[in-house]
């Protein structure tokens, strides 16, 4: 539970733990809690929250712990408190299944309302929750075009320029001396950026997986990997040393 611990820690110098990157000319900060912050527009992006994942499994007979929503919202609260964004974009798969937001316990509904107070909140629809959210603040949409960037859940195959997407839960593996360490990452080649999954009970997919094929210009690809308490930026070609 590194991120939950990290969320409750005081960070003295945000610059040393985060990583700066530029997507289609727009400056962005990769926060070690798993969110992307665009300072010029005061816009915060999180992706693949997968809220109520435990409950979604319980509905199908697997009694996973019911604490994932609580944990994910705690981290979300911390990252919102840090940046105080004007706009929050949640990039799809906000809930793990279609009925997730309708069945959301009241206490979490209130928590999200508190977080959204005083800012714009946009739910992008994902493949797990294509019908939008029920009884939650903010608006929902399939895509958002704003500040020269396109925000959508699944990366498009035709227009990479200026795209911020989620869906694939990118993770990268560093190999040194026959030892491998795999971590979720922000993946960008300067044209598009793929967000790591923000949900605390969501896994990752390696950048070498065939689902990633053709998304990036490999020579420019950098994985901003989520370490215990900071971001480590590693060039794709340098992952295997």
């Amino acid at each position, binding site marked *: *539970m590194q991120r*939950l611990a990290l969320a409750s820690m005081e960070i003295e110098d945000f610059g040393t733990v985060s990583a700066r990157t530029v997507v289609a000319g727009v400056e962005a900060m990769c926060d070690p809690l798993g969110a992307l912050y665009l300072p010029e527009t005061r816009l915060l992006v999180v992706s693949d929250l997968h809220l109520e*994942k*435990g*409950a979604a*499994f*319980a*509905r*199908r*007979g*697997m*009694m*996973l*712990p*019911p*604490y*994932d929503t*609580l*944990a994910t919202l705690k981290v979300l609260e911390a990252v919102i408190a840090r940046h105080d964004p004007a706009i929050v974009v949640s990039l799809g798969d906000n809930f793990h299944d279609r009925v997730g937001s309708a069945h959301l*316990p009241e206490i979490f509904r209130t928590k999200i309302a508190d977080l959204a107070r005083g800012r714009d909140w946009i739910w992008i629809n994902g493949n797990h929750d294509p019908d939008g959210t029920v009884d939650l603040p903010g608006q929902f949409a399939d895509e958002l075009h704003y500040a020269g960037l396109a925000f959508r859940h699944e990366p498009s195959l035709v227009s990479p320029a200026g795209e911020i997407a989620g869906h694939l839960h990118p993770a990268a*593996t*560093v*190999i*040194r*001396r*026959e*030892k*491998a*360490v*795999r*971590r979720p990452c922000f993946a960008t080649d300067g044209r598009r950026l793929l967000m790591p999954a923000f949900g*605390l*009970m*969501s*896994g990752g997919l*390696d950048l070498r997986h*065939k689902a990633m094929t053709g998304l990036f210009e490999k020579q420019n690809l*950098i994985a901003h*990997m989520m*370490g*215990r308490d900071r971001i*480590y*930026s*590693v*060039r794709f070609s*340098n*992952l*295997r*040393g």
Partner: protein
Amino acid sequence: MSTIDSAAGPALLPAPFADWFESKGWRPRAHQMELLSRASAGESLLLIAPTGAGKTLAGFLPALTDLTRRGKIPPGSAFTGVHTLYISPLKALAVDIERNLTKPVSEMGLPITIETRTGDTPQAKRQRQRLNPPDILLTTPEQVALLIANGEAERFFKDLKYVIFDELHSLVTSKRGHLLSLGLARLRRLAPSLRTIGLSATVAEPMDLRRWLVAQSPDGESHAGLVTAPGGAKPVITILKSEERVPWSGHSAKYAMPEVYEAIKAHRTALLFVNTRSQAEILFQALWAINEDTLPIALHHGSLDVGQRRKVEQAMAENRLRAVVATSTLDLGIDWGDVDLVIHVGAPKGASRLAQRIGRANHRMDEPSRAILVPANRFEVMECQAALDANYLGAQDTPPVGHGTLDVLAQHVLGMACAAPFDEDDLFAEITTASPYTGLPREKFARIVQFVATGGYALKTYERYARIRKTVDGLWRVSNPGIAQQYRLNLGTIVEMPMLNVRMVKRGAKGAVGRGGASLGKVEEYFLEMLSPGDTFLFSGKVLRFEGIRENECLVSQAFSLDPKVPAYAGGKFPLSTYLADQVRSMLDDPARWGELPDQVRDWLALQRDVSSLPKRDELLIETFPRGSRHYMVAYPFEGRLAHQTLGMLLTRRLERAGRRPLGFVATDYSLAIWALDDLGYSFAVERPSLENLFDEDMLGDDLEAWLDESFMLKRAFRNCAVIAGLIEQRHPGKEKTGRQVTVSADLIYDVLRSHEPDHILLEATRADAAAGLLDIQRLGDMLARIKGHITHRRLTRISPLAVPIMLEIGRETVAGEAQDFLLAEAAEDLIAEAMGEAGI
């Protein structure tokens, strides 16, 4: 108990049996007749016999004679349930027994039907068996669990008279054994008059098995009767005395290959045992490299494709092979033709395991088995010598049966709900008759039932999704039929590591990868993650080139590299047994026993005595010395790798807190090395900290707790518990998942659960599991108590002879926990350096 003279045979044996024995020129053995008469009189029994003593026939005699007296069931009679259940740990063994049993039964013309039922049995045959059961059903523990969870179980087992457990010693010590003990408790309820017969090799604590075989009650212990067959001829065991230099460290024993090859040539068929699958691969490769006579030498281990394994077994049974390199997959009881030599490469790690493996040679008990031990390094020379002494002395170090685990209990509770609605008190009374669960508190059972129903969380949000519910009549029932289907798909206690199938493909002229060829077996996913296309590794006896991963398969092609990477398999590493550890320590302490050791090992020990000292049997020797820019401490507890790893973690934490700046540690079966920036020798000399404090037993308190929660080993144990307990499915109806696709990451669930409900019953089960298995905490505790006040510190100026083996291991250890981020930092630093370079700085 009285022994029965074999002259009493005719009275007990029905005519066809007596005639059959006579026609073969055999006489029933005393232990066979004793077992027959006592079982027929209604006793449950444990038979302890060496291999080759006619154990199997003995086990079946009571059932066969009873069935012969009963006669054939006339057609049109009312349904008759199964009469005898035979349960074996291996599918192959059940199939083998069918062959061996059918032969005498048909020769005697007995009116008895015998069938097998395993995971390989076709659906139609299983269906038919439920409607029309055979008299004798030969099966596995998993099939028993399936049968008793079925709604027809009551009818199927109502006539059950005998349950025979083969290789009981190997069944009972695992979670599989725990599940089987619960299954037996249910069978006893369905057929109250059933008798059990356990067949076992020699074990350290026969009473554990005798209790296991019969129902326990709160009023006092009960146990099955004991029948012991006399031991056979003493095995002839030698340690390979090589002309070559025995290496300081390593596990491959490559130095001894020419001599091993000569030994194979001098015998009809040799079985070569190793401890890990990667050792098997290396040994096989090394033997073929010098196989000038192209002797048929084969390979057999658990990761290989099933078809390939069956082929090897077949060839072995037909005496077409001269040697097979095998892991523990061949430890157990199938007859493999004419094996006249067992070669054990590497130390056996336990005296009982060695006895079992040596028993694989020559299944006739009146002739001695022959075995050669091939130590792979110098410590193993001593270990082999100790094991050899032990085998002569008949010492045993089989593991204890252990307390029944909670994850297995959860699985069983769901299975019982699938069979029929249950009353919680009744089921509790039933499961506590199983000896591993006798001491289970009622309250803990209630928590398990809650866990099965809704996950048992303090936050009760899943009531409406419950898998089982208590209805108005007070009985627990499954909520819907889908639950039972889910249960059947995920039943069992063997949790797969995420594995990928390895498939051979042809490489096209332009490097294009062709379509599928032969499947070679399975390899762990984490190993493949470290490979890039073009890398080579050793698998299935071949050097393979990794081409990539397509869907759920790892594609490989034939490679010609001579320096492959070797699969670093997770499974198959046994720690040194407590008994052998003590023997090795006593050998070190007693130069009079060095006479048995090869010259080079003796010289090594003598040199150690001169420049440092040798550890006394009950003391702990600690050496400190500088090397390069670092300071080392090496401890020699001889308590096995797992206990040493735990000790290493705890000591490193303590040294860190004392400000001694430790950098890392590495553990082997024999010793433990820690390195630091500070001069540890000086620190101990001025008692900052003192060694007595450093090694104080209180490290097993808070330090252990704190470390445990962070430990990757706990995550591994959790995954296992979560799958067995049914929290995570390995397979979902309609989507047959492989280990790779376990639907959610167990690590993430562990993290969420630990931070929100650390007292959850599944975390409790995980900690208990880890403490018993992966961490060997009991053993560590015993060791710390033993060495209290007996620590000897040698401050040396340089490395000692005894320290060389472990120093050679440094750099081969795996990284875990916090250390992982160092690797990330290293890769990121590279990026910075690169970026700086680009900027022209």
